[in-house]
Every structure is written in structure tokens, then in C-alpha cells.
């Protein structure tokens, strides 16, 4: 199955990004294809490479970044939502890229399912 993933909240404050990450990982392990992970609303904050949580806690930015690079999963941050929230290319962790909302729609068109994680 081809899956699109929509992440609407940032790391730490809501569990949405955690659940989306665990879901995406499980889907990849089962051999499904991830068309794209799209970060919208506060979800754009998942791409901020400066995030530095306590060492005994998980770092979602790093986890997404590694998942994206190891499995070739596209991690797309919405440009309009990112500008509002002060996220630009300088802050972007490896594996993320900034693009338009059309990338979300396209993921819905190409994918067999679109799964949303939010608040």
C-alpha cells in the first residue's frame, strides 16, 4: 500500500509527531511505501535542527531525519506554515525539504491512504 502521512503538530508538546513516527516506521517495516510525510500547521517545527531535548528523552527531529535518510522517505515541510512560524532552510534538519501545499494534495492523489496525526 502507498501511504501519505500528515503531521499537524510539533514535537514534544503533543504526542502526534511521536505516533506518526511510530506508525511510519511500522509501515516501512511491513514493506509499505511511504509516498511522503507532510508537515503542516505546527508540524513544521519537527524540522528544526536546533531542537535539543534532555539526553534521557527522545529527539523527534533526529528520529524523523534519520528515518527519512535511511529509507529515502520524503519529509516535506509546508512553506507557508513554516514562514509563519520562523522555520526556513537555515534551520532545516537533514532529510527535510520545504515545499508547497500541493505536495500534500499530490500525496493524497498518488497514495492509497492518507493518515493524519494532530491535536
Amino acid at each position, binding site marked *: 500500500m502507498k*501511504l501519505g502521512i500528515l503531521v499537524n503538530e510539533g514535537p514534544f508538546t503533543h504526542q502526534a509527531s511521536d505516533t506518526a513516527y511510530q506508525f511510519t516506521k511500522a509501515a516501512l517495516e511491513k514493506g509499505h511505501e511511504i509516498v511522503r510525510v507532510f508537515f503542516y500547521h505546527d508540524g513544521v517545527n519537527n524540522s528544526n535542527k536546533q531542537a535539543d531535548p534532555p539526553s534521557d528523552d527522545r529527539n523527534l527531529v533526529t528520529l524523523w531525519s534519520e528515518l527519512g535518510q535511511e529509507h529515502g522517505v520524503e519529509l516535506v515541510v509546508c512553506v507557508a506554515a513554516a514562514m509563519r512560524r520562523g522555520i526556513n532552510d537555515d534551520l532545516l534538519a537533514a532529510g527535510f525539504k520545504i515545499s508547497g501545499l500541493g505536495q500534500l494534495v499530490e500525496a493524497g492523489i498518488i497514495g492509497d491512504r492518507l493518515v493524519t496525526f494532530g491535536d
Partner: protein
Amino acid sequence: MALLHTVNKSPFERNSLSDCLRRAKNGSAVLLIEDGVYGALQGTSASDEISSRDGSIKLYALGPDVDARGLSEKPLIDGLELIDYAGFVDLVEEYSSVQSWL
């Protein structure tokens, strides 16, 4: 054509579980995730509403979220099935589309 509904908020805090149950058709599935798993508890002020749909819709809860919240030893509502993230993926494949009651 039947939907998978996900609910991620506590029924004691928000109305999203009620909002979902009121619209979920017979034959659809409701998966409780994150703080939504509190809706899986038996013997609470919220459990009657979800129990009443047992049989007409399939009820699931995400086990890792149940464990995180210390609910693994508490009685859960009858007919509810615990799944893991891989089971979540299987449900997404099994049903025609997913509606997240955010």
C-alpha cells in the same frame, strides 16, 4: 467501503469520542490512540456510550498508549481489542479510508 476512525483525546476532556461515535456507521472501526485510550476503561463515566456500540462497530485501542498510561492492569470495555503500531497499519489497509477526529 467502511471507515477507520481514530480518536486521540480523553473522553473526560473533549467531546471527540462522542462526536465520532455519533457518526460512525455500523461496520466501521474506531481506534483509540494517545489520550484517546482512556475511553477504553471500563466502569467510568464515559464507558457506557462506547460500550453501547460494541457489536455494531469494531473497537480497538493502541496497546503502547494503554501501557504508557498505566492502564494495562485495569479492566477494559468488552469487545475491545488491543493492537500495536503494526496492527494500526493493518487497519489502515483493511478499511477504505481514515478519518481522524482531531
